[in-house]
């Protein structure tokens, strides 16, 4: 069942809102015209991952001759960072940049009539449609 979280316009870009629906904590993220949603539980030790800081992915700037000019921020990938120990996850895919097997639990999300809806297993909430 779909539960309305907020207007898309209520989210910054990039931005996020973490809400609790029927005891389940869900982080909804906006990147441009896209929205993504994940359970607010880190695959590491269950920390409140969606409530962390958002920063672009850091990259090692290695040239074709093998030299590095140090670290730079990605212009395309934004990460959500778990505030417990710093595990980072690509907001678009929910995947850890180093170990791709480590990933956030995705929640189905969509935009309808300018509002963000998430689909949860049990929906008895007043915001359900």
């Amino acid at each position, binding site marked *: 069942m779909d539960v309305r979280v907020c207007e898309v316009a209520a989210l910054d870009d990039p931005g996020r809102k*973490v*809400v*609790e629906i029927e005891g389940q*904590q869900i982080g909804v993220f906006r990147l441009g015209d896209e929205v993504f949603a994940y359970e607010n539980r880190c695959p590491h030790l269950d920390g*409140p991952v969606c409530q962390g800081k958002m920063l672009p992915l850091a990259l090692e700037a290695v040239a074709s001759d093998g030299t590095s000019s140090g670290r730079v921020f990605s212009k395309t990938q934004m990460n959500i960072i778990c505030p417990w*120990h*710093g595990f980072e996850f690509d907001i678009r895919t929910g995947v850890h940049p180093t170990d791709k097997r480590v990933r956030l639990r995705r929640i189905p999300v969509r935009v309808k009539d300018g509002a963000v809806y998430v689909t949860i297993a049990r929906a008895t*909430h*007043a915001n359900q449609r």
Partner: protein
Amino acid sequence: MLDRAAPKATSLPELPEITAATDTRAYLARAAVQAQSHDDYELIVDVDAHLQEGGFWPEIIDLLGNDVLKQTAQAMLRPGSLPLINMQPGMTFQAMAGRIPHQSGPQEQTDDPAKAGHRFVQIVRRTIETMGLDYQVIFPTAMLHLGMNPMEDIEVELARAYARWLIERILPEDPRIIALLYLPFNSPVECEKLVREYGDRPGIIGFTICAVRHKGVHHNQYARLFSMIEETGKPLVFHAGPHWDDPSFTQLNRFVSMHALSFVHYNLIHMTNWIINAMPERYPNMKVVWVESGLAWVPFLMQRLDHEVMMRQSEAPGLKRLPSEYMREMYYSSQPLERNDLELLEMTMRKINADTQLLFASDWPHWDFDPPSAITTLPFLSDQAKRNILGLNAARVFNLPVKRLRPRAKDVLAARAAAGVA
């Protein structure tokens, strides 16, 4: 039949971004949920948590006994600064550029100290109750570097001021907060004086050598100190730490590299001296604990020393058994628990007799902290092993009564719900 009213849209409860100002109880809310899994355990002891001195440094330097050092420190004092501490302020990367807010705290609101107690005590109480602990052992953070301070008098005077701050201001406020006496190990006679003066004070449950230093722990100048400690029946605890200025580490260009090696490095050196000089034979009743280097280094050193000692017996003639056999009788704190390869971790735990020798440590509020769930979720440990590691082993090492002091997990959660905190 009743008509069901159509559901009305309401705003959903929101959880804010976590920052350095977030209340510890909100930061660790998930740990409170996890605590239900071990709520029936007899005792939960966290043998290593930390004071972030920044907010409390004026109180500590106010207790300095030396007039000149006290005036010097007070003249240098600025908000959040740490006069007399030999740590480069521009090189503190622990909080990962804001990614780990709790590392740069505590900045949370606390209540009026006249009613609710010392600000630090209030914050520790929040941690204890949220994580579901009966006792928490407090270590300093910035002071871990003092062993490298070229001014030996600073280490001595700060060790004394810190002991007084703990004993006079902090420990009397809550029996669940316990601590070790910081030994200014560069000055052996001063260590003896401190042990004599403060070693039996309530809440002082052992003695710590902050391991970041270039001092051979086997040296004869420490013989009397070690005998005194052995007689107290309280443990000697080596607490590891980072030190980027160590010449070998200046080759490492990232904090993660230095941090991964540095904590292990100092305990490797001190353990090697402790074993090769047969200190376990010389102080057979001394309980020795190795803190904050994780566990992966222990089987490495066991293998390495066993291998070499078998060939070079004449250089370790005091040993009556293999190094690994002595090491298996020492104690280790669990954090930071290297959990990525559970097969290796299981083997490591077997090698160190984790069931009886491992002590849970959180290292809170540092960036690589472990909640008790780091232990309770290990699939290969028996329930009894988990109980031992989380508290019963520590009770034995630190002479603590096995008596529940923590509230029930369900009561902690109910109080949070009643206060409307997620």
